[in-house]
């Protein structure tokens, strides 16, 4: 029998997981719960019913193209409501099960609105977006293990130290094998010293822009968890926020 020693943060931390009908997957929740356990964080599940989509469904000509068959069919509000109800209930059950297993404090809430906007409206917590499940191109095996690839978006903000603390905690608990720090400026020399975890490979990547709306164009390590400062999203329009969560397929953690 292997004895696992869990090193956890002594700081009180709350993580909000933003879920909708497209992202409430078990893999995402398992990842989050593992991270929360290492970070000694409590969890808040926030299920957000996509109000914009509901509104679109009420348009007279609205239809949807099925992603498996390319078949066109009417987009019905009642059907969307039903799907959301089921997805919310499932997300709640999963969160309850996983949190209870790892003895984590948890709460669950439902809201209607736009995913990123609603999530960001909650203050005093880190925010976790599990990443949109992509129907296509899941060529690689889905890993059921907590993240081994971690990408930090460097913005030279005070939260970066907190991000490094998160990385350190996850690393010493064996959840990380590779850390990539993406920056549009040269990195301070002491960063490597702040991550002295044996067995974790460090990579640095200099890019033209680390602006959130440009993230989807970056070549990031496959299946990586992206850590970014919550403040980096300041100034984005609702549409830009919506596009970020819609088009970004990686799990994203916004550190408060």
């Amino acid at each position: 029998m292997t004895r696992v020693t869990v090193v956890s943060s002594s700081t009180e931390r709350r993580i909000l997981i933003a879920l909708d009908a497209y992202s409430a997957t078990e893999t995402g929740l398992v990842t989050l719960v593992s991270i929360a356990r290492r970070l000694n964080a409590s969890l808040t599940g926030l299920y957000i019913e996509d109000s914009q989509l509901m509104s679109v469904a009420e348009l007279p000509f609205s239809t949807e193209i099925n992603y498996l068959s390319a078949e066109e069919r009417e987009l019905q509000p009642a059907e969307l409501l039903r799907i959301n109800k089921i997805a919310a209930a499932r997300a709640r059950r999963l969160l309850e099960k996983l949190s209870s297993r790892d003895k984590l404090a948890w709460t669950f809430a439902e809201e209607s609105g736009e995913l990123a906007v609603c999530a960001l409206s909650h203050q005093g917590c880190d925010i976790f977006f599990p990443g949109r499940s992509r129907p296509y191109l899941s060529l690689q095996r889905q890993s059921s293990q907590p993240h081994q690839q971690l990408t930090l978006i460097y913005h030279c903000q005070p939260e970066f130290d907190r991000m490094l603390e998160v990385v350190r905690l996850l690393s010493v608990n064996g959840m990380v094998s590779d850390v990539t720090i993406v920056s549009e400026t040269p990195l301070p020399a002491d960063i490597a010293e702040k991550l002295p975890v044996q067995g974790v490979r460090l990579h640095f990547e200099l890019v033209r822009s680390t602006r959130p709306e440009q993230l989807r164009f970056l070549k990031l390590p496959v299946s990586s968890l992206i850590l970014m400062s919550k403040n980096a999203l300041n100034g984005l329009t609702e549409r830009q926020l919506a596009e970020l969560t819609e088009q970004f397929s990686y799990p994203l953690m916004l550190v408060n």
Partner: protein
Amino acid sequence: MTDKPLPPALPIESLYRRCDPATLSFKDTTELEHLDNYFGQDRALDAMRFGLGIHHEGYNIYVMGSPGMGKHEMLQDFLQQHIADDPRPNDWCYINNFSAPQQPKVLKLPCGVAGRLQKNMEQCIEDLLVTIPGVFQSAEYKARLNEISEEYSDKEQQAFTTLRDKAKERDIALMQTPTGYTLAPLAKDKIITPEEFEALDEAEQKTIEEKISELKEELKQVVLKMPMWMKEGRERMKKLNQNIVLNAVNQIFRELEIRYGEHAEVLNFLAEVKQDVIENVDAFREEEGHASGPEDLKARVHEFPMYKVNVLVDNSGTCSPPIVYEDNPSLNNLMGRVEHEAQFGTLTTDFTLIRNGALHRANGGYLLLDALKVLTNPFAWETLKRALHAHEIRIESIDQLLSLVSTKSLEPEPVPLDLKVILLGDRMIYYLLEAYDPDFKLLFKVPADLSEDLPRTADNTLGYARLIAALQHRKSLRPLDPGAVARVVEQGSRMLEDAEKLPLRLNSLTDLLCESDYYAAIAKADRISALHVQQAIEAAVRRMDQFRERVHESILRDIQLVDSSGAKVAQINGLSVYQLGEYAFGGPTRITAQARLGSGKVLDIEREVKLGGNIHSKAVLILSAFIASRFAKNRPLPISASLVFEQSYGGVEGDSASVAEITVLLSAIADIPIRQNLAVTGSINQHGQVQAIGGINQKIEGFYDICAARGLTGDQGVVMPSANTQHLMLASRVIDAVASGQFHIYAVSTIDEALSLLTGIPAGEPDQQAQYPANSVNGRVAAKVAEWIQLAKKYAVHDDKGDRREQ
């Protein structure tokens, strides 16, 4: 013409042929050179040598002999000596047929190679399980994998980004829904609400709808491309996986290919395995979090049965062709079978569950089977013949043979068959098969007929002693002294009912030796002596003779009426043998007759009530013919007579009572008393000659025992056929009584001799006018017959007159 003198009682030397221990020149059997089991079987051995030596189709062998001959041991010994220098047999395996898994392939390998290949393949799977996951962990692989993954991810993203941008230019937003995509109109970078849309004029609404409609078609095209890209991506990844492991897999197989370079079929198999491993390389990748300790590896080897080798026959331990005896030749035990495993309530199978049969194990050698067992096991005989005809072993279940089930099962490739089948059985089965099964003659062309006995000459007696020595040694018994050997020889002749023969039933002989050894052990003797042999013989009889005691007791208590003194008309003591398995005993039976004027018919009461067998009825017809021929050659025999075995409630069979029956019949006709102190046995032919019968020793002893129990009178005895004199091996109690003149045994050749002895009156020889002396038995019978003829004539005249009156 004078009457012939009565035949004298047999001298004591005729009653038992002793084996003089003095003629056996050894102290005990340890001094004797051992003799093979097949002593005295020259004819059968010649046939065996011929059958084993000839290599043409159908020259299989049928060894025939009675049960208890020791056929198996004899045959095993003979084969071991005969085949010592023959080539070693091949190993046989089943391997997966990668193009048709339901038809496993058979693999023939030199002796000892199959087991090695089996181990090597298991090690190979272990090596693959260690090596392949390692290859997938390499940085090179991960980089190339990411490249492909990103390429297709970019493709998808690019397609949707292009469409999204195009849509945005037209103030349309591309949105994801839980099960697909939708398009919605934008106004100032915000999605138009239904109310805002309603507020637009009709033309604007129509324009929006047209734009959406156009984009929708493009969206459909993009979505339709996704599965194609997905498939392409997967194929590239599969190719990548195959390429990345190719070198590692080649390295593992290279060693095996060198090791089995001489075996083209093994090389083909290895090439197929390698190809399959490469095509299904994902199966060897470790599951996440799956430990790969040595135990796990061993367990995981079983996940790849398709690469294993099922060794059907491993002859690595043998140095000569196999000799296989199948004790239970059922269809499965002969031909092999395909076993099944229950998995989640369903029966499944694969080539690793093919099990061998006796034909597989004996392939390249010799298969010994009991004919009766093969014939009585359903489908075994037909399937064996089919295999011998086709020269191949095809595994078929009874279900398949009967077409009872039509579920998918294995059809293993037949194994080429090259062996000699040796059937063992009795003669009756051989002749029945020869008569009724046309295939039998084609497949079993060599009969090896075992002798049941051999002449009891001095040389053979010494040979028999050597055979006894061999059996004693094999069974680890005490040595036998000459007296014991002599007693065994005598008992052999007794069991055979022939003083001139020695039996070759090794089982009985072995039993007698073992049982004698038991009594020697009780007596704490170093050697087995004649006394121990005698104790063993008597104990064996004692174990079986309760029924004899009951029968004799009923006679002695006058429940079953048998006289042993005095003289009675129309009543005689016949002798019967009761056969209880291998144990037989004899005893007297009263036979009576009645005769009167009649139509010339002898009524066999046993026959009438269906208690008489065919041979018995035949004997009665013969004696009727004899009487008619002797006493009424030129005229009708006006006699009606009846014969019966008194107090016989079971069946009567055989002709050994015909001398007694004719005697009692003539006694009834002529009112001549018959001596009850004599018993008689013997069959008769139509000319009045007395013929040999079976069970002579038991019959004599049976009557003697009754007389002895009542008290011997000195005039008692048995009349028997002289042809049976050579069979006499009587018990010592009878011989002692004869020696002291208390009991007499008479051997007769003709019915007249028997009549004279049994009636005490000369039988009478016919004179030149064919007339018998008046005071002879025949004369008195002839006179009575003449009297009845006259009476018959008188009654015939009365009948005629009566008839006329009626007219």
